[in-house]
């Protein structure tokens, strides 16, 4: 047997749409291999999520009923291992998310299947599966293959594929997996600290500062500039980690998505993939960075290579004069 198996993701009772990006990646493979696409839903009441994954590309939905609601690497791991043993898929896809970080490598290690993470492109090259990912802070791309592996497990970078759409009528198969034993005790959630009126997802115009700001003392200058420009102030992860700005201002994978943003100014942000996750979809991005090779310039529409402080001063002076 063969086929492509996708592991669906959910959290706090909500389906996670990144699953559909993995489906889209599978569609791309299917175009050359012609294999069928199955999505596995592993949950206490998997039926809840079946409609979410019933998109046109999906041939089958496999459900596994689990004792616990929230992610437990042992539960997901046991279920996925059982599914791989039962279906012997040629490719297993998971979203490259924090939850898959927590289980996918363990599964690969135990089964000895081919494995790569954070994959943003894949194809067959003469029957050989080739996955593409990045390295060295996005400066290079890496093509990876899996000699001799009948099954390959990949985690798919978010925002790399457009989510699969359309409505389908996949067959639903229930599979019972014995021996599921949770070892992680879920103790609850810690919501991100109150935003205090800071609304990154809702903002249409965001100016973010990154590592280039250098020191806490320099933050004030950009607070004032954001105010002068009428922009919502955002930041990259190191700034929030240092406590220089509240977490609610952090744009990126572990922060907020600039969901409604039309104009994004990135000051002194090199453009780590985690930050890009939160902003690269914005139509108008202006990046100011002293490093001409910073990866932010690959997603920005406009770029300025220069000193962010000098530019900020000029902006403030000129905006103030208007």
């Amino acid at each position, binding site marked *: 047997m063969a086929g492509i198996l996708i592991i669906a993701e959910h959290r706090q009772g909500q389906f996670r749409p990144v699953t559909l990006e993995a489906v889209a990646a599978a569609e791309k493979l299917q175009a050359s291999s012609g294999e069928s696409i199955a999505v596995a839903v592993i949950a206490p009441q998997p039926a809840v999520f079946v409609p979410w994954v019933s998109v046109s590309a999906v041939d089958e939905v496999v459900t596994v009923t689990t004792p616990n609601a929230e992610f437990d690497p042992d539960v997901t791991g046991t279920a996925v291992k059982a599914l791989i043993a039962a279906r012997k898929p040629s490719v297993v896809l998971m979203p490259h998310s924090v939850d898959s970080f927590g289980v996918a490598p363990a599964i690969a*290690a135990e089964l000895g299947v*081919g494995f790569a993470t954070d994959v943003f492109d894949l194809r067959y090259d003469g029957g050989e599966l080739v996955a593409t990912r990045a390295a060295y802070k996005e400066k290079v791309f890496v093509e990876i*293959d*899996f000699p001799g592996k009948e099954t390959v497990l990949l985690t798919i970078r978010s925002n790399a594929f457009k989510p699969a759409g359309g409505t389908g009528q996949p067959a639903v198969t229930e599979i019972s997996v014995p021996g599921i034993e949770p070892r*992680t005790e879920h*103790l609850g959630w810690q919501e991100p600290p109150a935003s205090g009126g800071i609304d990154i997802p809702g903002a249409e115009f965001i100016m973010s500062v990154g590592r280039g700001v250098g020191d806490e003392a320099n933050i004030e200058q950009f607070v004032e500039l954001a105010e002068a420009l009428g922009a919502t102030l955002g930041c990259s992860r190191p700034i929030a980690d240092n406590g220089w700005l509240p977490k609610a201002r952090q744009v990126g994978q572990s922060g907020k998505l600039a969901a409604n943003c039309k104009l994004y100014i990135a000051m002194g942000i090199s453009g780590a993939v985690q930050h890009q996750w939160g902003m690269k979809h914005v139509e108008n991005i202006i990046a100011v960075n002293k490093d001409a090779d910073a990866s932010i310039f690959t997603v920005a529409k406009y*770029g300025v290579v220069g000193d962010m402080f000098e530019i900020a001063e000029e902006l403030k002076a000129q905006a103030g004069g208007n």
Partner: protein
Amino acid sequence: MKILVPVKRTASLDDEFEMRDDGRDVDADFCEYDINEFDEFSVEEAIKIKEAAGEGTVEVVVMTVGPEDADEVLRKCLAKGADRGIRVWDDALEGSDQMAIARIIAKVVEREQPELVLTGAQSSDHGFAQTGIALAGILGWPHGAVVSFLEYTPGAPSLAFRRELEGGLEQKASIPMPAVLTIQLGINRPRYASLRGIRQANSKPVDELSHTDLGLTDDQVGEAGSLSRIRRMYVPERGRSEMIQGTPAQQASRILQIIKDVRG
């Protein structure tokens, strides 16, 4: 009790670099090497547990898989307060992927019998986010990935932690010992290793082991023991921003024009 902290010597690239002749990695001449940024946090977390427990209660062992140059990252960790180091290397290990590395670490775990293994959540060069959890899989130990907060008293049967998820949400969880955790950036503030400390760390023991010392066979390491293989590495063609030229004043005025055009 004992905490094992596997660390990696990672490379960062200069603006201009060239590929190796085989096209499968960057020419090492163009790399600056340092300890993986994430590992600075896992080492710090281990040392904090050691310091909180008081003298002589906790031993922190740092290890790395790599050639002799990798000693420098071990020295840095020893300078910060780790007790001893282990470096595993021999020629057969060349070409090992993260999975093969995890297998080697697992053998060190068997040998050292730590109660806790702390790794970085990922590496700052390749960013597989794989080694720690793969290790847990091989060992069959409970584990937690991307840990942003850790509460553990040496000797306790379990540990409590928070995992940082997407969007700033955190999951609070607890797992029984022994365990493997992968540590996220920002969990602590890594201390400085002074050069004097690094030099004095030369007197702390670093064991050098080969794969056979650990009971691994040739087909368990290197490319043979890997689950993936790098075919080629290349510099992508990318779209480039439209660069705004001129003096800072001219650049700023162009930015303001764009703001005006977009915002109306």
